[in-house]
């Protein structure tokens, strides 16, 4: 007779022989897991580190504070807009640091290139508001031209060959003099957070893009979440299971995988060309992103509904609740945390979306803050895209800073998601 089982000593030996290999496999797997996490974290730190390293300096700006004498000989009270204030200020600054202009005025032009155009506009606004100021002195403050700011930030080095940097040795000397005289002060760059896009880097900000993103996202949420949740609820809880609903389900899953630029094309064809929705408005952007987010919201909601234990449905139905009551009183509230998570993830995705918005004209230069859903606007990712393509060096640090603002926006949204989830989470 053959022995089916090894005697107990044999059993020990057999198990012990394999045990070493099994434990080794276990340790190996844990090691691989740790390596994978370390690699992922490493890349994340690298990415964030690079962005912060490149962008943090945006949040510091160098402002020039100076007195301007509003020379009545140069300003015509009848036509204040006709005066060249930039030149006026530049000349007075030259005088102040004891440099005489040459006969062509090239030195004052060179000085003018160090100053933000904002300074001149400030004077104009003040003179327009009160022509009585002509002949008096004004104290004004404005950021230096972006290149001058880069010099103080150390990103333009005096040691670099003169022809390879935007500022001449002479201009650098002047900046040093202005600094030594205490006219230049560094501080937090509020301009970046309170202004919109500008052709001048030192006057460019993200406010317009942030407001545009927020308006668009509110519209996306207001459309995609109710429609998506209701569609998913109907499909999951009410629709008969047949070939048609299978077809709908397959199509929704496919739509979730459609490249986002295709939604942009759809938006261009349907919303702009056919329905005449104003282009580059948060309205058209929100509509396109709502379409894009719908499949994700539907899929997330359906899986959240599927995760609700059937015993809850049975309990409500057996009490004589109608199917609608069962779903809206019991099933949907239990699925809510999952629905929220899915919805906010898809909104975060929508927030970072660029390609479809390029198709509906949001890539234009918009210097103002949008005040309505139909006004021209840009959004953060597109603003980043625009600045990244700009030739001026100072825009590149602003690109990184805008990415930081976008990331902060996303972190805030995810935080909201976590809080909402905590608030609605219930056990069963």
């Amino acid at each position: 007779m053959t022995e089916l089982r090894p005697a107990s000593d044999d059993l020990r030996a057999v198990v012990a022989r394999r045990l070493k290999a099994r434990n080794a496999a276990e340790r190996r797997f844990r090691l691989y897991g740790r390596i994978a996490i370390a690699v992922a974290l490493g890349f994340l730190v690298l990415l964030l580190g690079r962005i912060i390293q490149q962008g943090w300096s945006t949040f510091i700006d160098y402002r020039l504070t100076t007195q301007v004498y509003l020379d009545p000989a140069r300003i015509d009270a009848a036509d204040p807009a006709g005066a060249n204030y930039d030149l006026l200020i530049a000349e007075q600054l030259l005088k102040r640091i004891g440099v005489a202009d040459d006969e062509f005025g090239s030195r004052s032009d060179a000085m003018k290139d160090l100053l933000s155009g904002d300074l001149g506009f400030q004077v104009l606004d003040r003179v327009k508001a009160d022509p009585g100021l002509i002949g008096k002195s004004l104290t004004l403050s404005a950021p230096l031209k972006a290149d001058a700011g880069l010099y103080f930030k150390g990103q333009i080095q005096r040691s670099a060959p003169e022809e390879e940097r935007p500022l001449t040795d002479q201009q650098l000397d002047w900046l040093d003099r202005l600094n030594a005289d205490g006219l230049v002060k560094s501080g937090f760059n509020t301009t970046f957070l309170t202004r919109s896009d500008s052709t001048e880097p030192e006057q460019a900000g993200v406010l317009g893009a942030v407001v545009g993103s927020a308006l668009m996202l509110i519209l996306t949420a207001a459309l995609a979440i109710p429609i998506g949740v209701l569609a998913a609820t109907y499909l999951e809880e009410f629709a008969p299971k047949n070939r048609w609903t299978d077809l709908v389900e397959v199509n929704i899953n496919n739509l979730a995988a459609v490249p986002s630029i295709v939604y942009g094309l759809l938006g261009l064809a349907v919303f702009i060309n056919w329905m005449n929705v104003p282009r580059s408005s948060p309205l058209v952007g929100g509509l396109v992103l709502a379409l894009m987010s719908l499949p994700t919201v539907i899929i997330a909601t359906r899986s959240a509904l599927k995760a609700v234990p059937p015993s809850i449905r049975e309990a409500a139905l057996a009490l004589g609740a109608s199917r609608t009551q069962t779903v809206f009183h019991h099933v949907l509230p239990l699925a809510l945390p999952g629905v929220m998570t899915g919805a906010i993830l898809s909104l975060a995705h929508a927030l970072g979306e660029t390609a479809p918005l390029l198709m509906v004209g949001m890539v234009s230069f918009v210097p103002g803050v949008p005040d309505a859903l139909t006004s021209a606007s840009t959004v953060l990712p597109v603003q980043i895209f625009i600045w990244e393509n700009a030739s001026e060096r100072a825009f590149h640090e602003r690109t990184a800073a805008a990415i930081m603002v976008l990331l902060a926006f996303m972190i805030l949204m995810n935080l909201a998601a976590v809080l909402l989830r905590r608030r609605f989470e219930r056990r069963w």
Partner: protein
Amino acid sequence: MTDAQVSPPALTPSAAAGASSDGAPRISASGVRVFYGEKQALFDIDLDVPDRAVTALIGPSGCGKSTFLRCINRMNDTIPGARVEGRILLDGEDVNDRSLDPVLLRARVGMVFQKPNPFPKSIFENVAYGPRIHGIATSRPELEGVVEQALKRAGLWKEVSDRLDQPGTGLSGGQQQRLVIARAIAINPEVILMDEPCSALDPIATARIEELIDELRAQYCIVIVTHSMAQAARVSQRTAFFHMGRLVEAGPTGDIFTRPGDSRTQDYITGRFG
């Protein structure tokens, strides 16, 4: 243990058809067949269920006793591919009648499940839910009265009266099951169906539920599915034995357990299979 305990016929002008020796039955099933897709789960069940008594459905796993129970309040409607044929009369009215709204039927036929399934809401809300959706009680004081009465009848009031606002899911298994019974009787149904109500409970909790069933018997028609022979013998007045989708025999519990008419019943109750 005879039928003497069974109370007089229901007040409703109930079905004369299929009247058994117990007087007018509350529920009368004839020729009930159930299909899950291609598979037939029940074969021509004829069974009368008396009022104000406990009827136990026993039989081995998969014999169709739960399926039959779920026919009575049309819970099989919720299973895709399930098909029910035959007639089940509740007070002479066919429950499968197209014109009968399942919502109305389920208000009249309460159900308690195998696993306690309180809603993840407060104890109060659990019991108040039924009365509220059916409009039995609308104002807060009215609801409070209904909830208190239902919890008292379910023997849970003393244990939870000071924490009605706490989640029903925080109670122990046995308490949850009594909460679920309170929830069912809060709308004052005519029939209570129980699908193995004690299978997830320990012996002490089981004893409490059995006591409760015994008390409720005075007011309701109760049908209980159970795997425990002893439980069937303890709580029921009538017993029906199911085997492989067929009703083998039904009768007074005492008779079924002492003088079964069929050898399969004999084998099952003596533990030879199942």
